[in-house]
């Protein structure tokens, strides 16, 4: 009985803490302008199924994709077992599903155990790859301090959680009256052979509690970690940009103004004007930008494909996403802080180095769009501050005065037809 009460207390505490985290996330998201991406729901579900559930954009890097899918499937399926943990914890029983499911139960746990071993293996591979793989995107200057630790914490935690699960089963398998006829458990049970039945019970229960509390702790760790992508990948891909990749959405206020200039009889359908053209801070971005930032898993695929970053420029699309997220968190933590995303977190030098090549957008396995943020801040710089580099101002003056980015007269556009 006491155990059941303790279980419920811990569970409630874990759930309440997580709910607080989610409320905080929603406050972060609500900071941005609302999303207009509610159209074509069936297409959105399809993109979500393909990219998030089906890992559709991971294929470019087969080794990473292979181990990632193991951890991903392992994570999702082994959590089915959490269901039993909950039921056992609430009812105070042990392996409540074993008797009713019979052979099916043994098969399922066998499967989970093997998957668990594979997950441990994959996490070890990932840790080694990060540390010794000589992979630029992991040794990159974006990832110093916390982001680097975060990656390691996640991998170690997953290993520890899986080990706890296997130890629990193995300790039970080592008991004379244990009912744990599972492959991995049986294989490692001899390790516990020297222990008394009482000690084995303790190990078993200890591991059970460890796994349960561990899962709750991990759940609460997610929202401040890049690992939040395991949940946010789903809504994030749902809010993907569905229209042509090369389309920058038009600003309606600008359209109205120009139409009125060109045609004095034009009656605008609305007089709404944005508080600010483009984005200076996170509040000027739109919902999907901030969701992107919270979802970013800091894998650096975008940065490793970025032509500016590959040639030593300061711009890194991954850093754009990390800066956006950090700035949103800063607004939540220190509302009085007057730093802004532009200049405070992202420099002009970075913004002007972008070629708008879309390589980052293509590379992101989660359909994150760093270019959208870059583009909106450039709009702010040019439209609100007239702060483009001088050479770009020359280009724009030319477009305005003679309809080409260079200073050639428009009347000469057809000259090539008469030249030889």
């Amino acid at each position, binding site marked *: 009985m006491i155990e059941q009460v303790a279980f419920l207390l811990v569970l409630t505490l874990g759930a309440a803490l997580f709910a607080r985290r989610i409320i905080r996330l929603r406050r972060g998201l609500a900071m941005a302008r609302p999303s207009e991406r509610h159209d074509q729901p069936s297409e959105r579900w399809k993109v979500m199924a393909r990219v998030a559930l089906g890992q559709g954009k991971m294929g470019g890097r087969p080794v990473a994709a292979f181990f990632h899918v193991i951890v991903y499937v392992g994570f999702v399926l082994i959590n089915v077992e959490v269901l039993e943990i909950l039921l056992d914890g609430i009812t105070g029983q042990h392996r409540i599903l074993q008797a009713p499911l019979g052979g099916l139960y043994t098969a399922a746990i066998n499967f989970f155990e093997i998957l668990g071993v594979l997950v441990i293996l994959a996490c070890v591979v990932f840790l080694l790859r990060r540390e010794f793989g000589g992979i630029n995107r992991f040794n990159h200057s974006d990832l110093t301090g916390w982001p680097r630790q975060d990656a390691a914490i996640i991998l170690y935690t997953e290993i520890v959680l899986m080990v706890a699960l296997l130890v629990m089963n193995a300790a039970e398998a080592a008991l004379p009256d244990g009912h744990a006829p599972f492959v991995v458990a049986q294989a490692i049970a001899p390790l516990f052979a020297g222990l008394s039945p009482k000690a084995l019970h303790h190990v078993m229960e200890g591991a059970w509690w460890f796994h349960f509390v561990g899962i709750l702790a991990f759940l609460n760790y997610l929202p401040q970690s890049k690992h939040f992508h395991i949940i946010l990948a789903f809504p994030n891909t749902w809010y993907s940009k569905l229209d042509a990749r090369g389309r920058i959405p038009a600003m309606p206020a600008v359209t109205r103004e120009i139409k009125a200039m060109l045609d004095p009889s034009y009656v605008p359908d609305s007089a709404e004007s944005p508080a600010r053209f483009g984005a200076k801070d996170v509040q000027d971005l739109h919902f999907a930008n901030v969701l992107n930032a919270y979802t970013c898993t800091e894998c650096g695929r975008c940065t490793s494909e970025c032509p500016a970053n590959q040639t030593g420029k300061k711009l890194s699309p991954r850093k754009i996403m990390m800066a956006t997220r950090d700035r949103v968190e800063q607004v939540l933590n220190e509302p009085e802080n007057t730093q802004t995303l532009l200049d405070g977190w992202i420099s002009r030098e970075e913004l002007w180095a972008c*070629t708008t090549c*879309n390589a980052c957008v293509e590379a992101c396995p989660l359909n994150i769009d760093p270019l959208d943020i870059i583009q909106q801040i450039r709009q702010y710089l040019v439209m609100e501050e007239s702060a483009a580099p001088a050479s770009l101002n020359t280009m*724009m003056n030319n477009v305005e005065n003679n309809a*080409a980015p260079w200073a050639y007269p*428009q009347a*000469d556009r057809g000259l090539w037809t008469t030249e030889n």
Partner: protein
Amino acid sequence: MMEALHVPTLAEMTQRGEKPDVLFWVGCAGSFDDRAKKITKAFARLLQRSGVSFAVLGAEESCTGDPARRAGNEFLFQMQALANIEVLQAYEVQRIVTTCPHCFNTLKNEYPELGGSFEVFHHTQYLQTLLKEGKLKVEGGAFKGKRIVFHDPCYLGRVNQEYEAPRALLSTLEAELTEMRRCKKQGLCCGAGGAQMFKEPEAGDKDINHERAEEALSTEPAIIATGCPFCNTMMTDGVKHFEKEGSVQVLDIAEAIAQADEL
């Protein structure tokens, strides 16, 4: 020296009471840049030889606004776009072909929202259709045995998912087609996009076009083919940087095909 091309403007054709099948949108580089003008002329010759009825806007053409928009100047972009749409609609233009992937992207993807919906083709797509219809015939002989590597323009490939048309055209040249490691979806930008063409690059270890030209040269090509006047400039400069201009040519696909046909 080749003869001057006599390409009619839409105004002239309209005056004669004629209507072309397609409008050739030449773009700013294609109109003014000496290197790009060669691409423009090569493509116009291919259209003429295929018997396509086409016209240009001439002095009525204006920048699509792409570099202004990507630099962040939405106002200037829309000024250009709305004015262009007015001209295009006044002539009842329905089909547009262009040799510039940036014009292509803007006309195709960004004008509809502002009221200008047209059927827009990149010239490699258009040439591929002419080839399929048997209107364009390519004699591959001149390039036989030469190695060609194609550099994907970002705004044709990654942005508009057209990887096939340029390659299909190149394959008619009976040349040896090869690929760079970073090609198609992973094609590395030449460094010109997003208005970079009009400014100095930010500080770094290397210019992007040098990085890309180096990769292209590592395939030991006789020809680096492109489908964009800006990529062409960037790759030409890159090849010069490595002092390979004597042995490696940078050609637009339209130029390669026109050369094959001795046009």
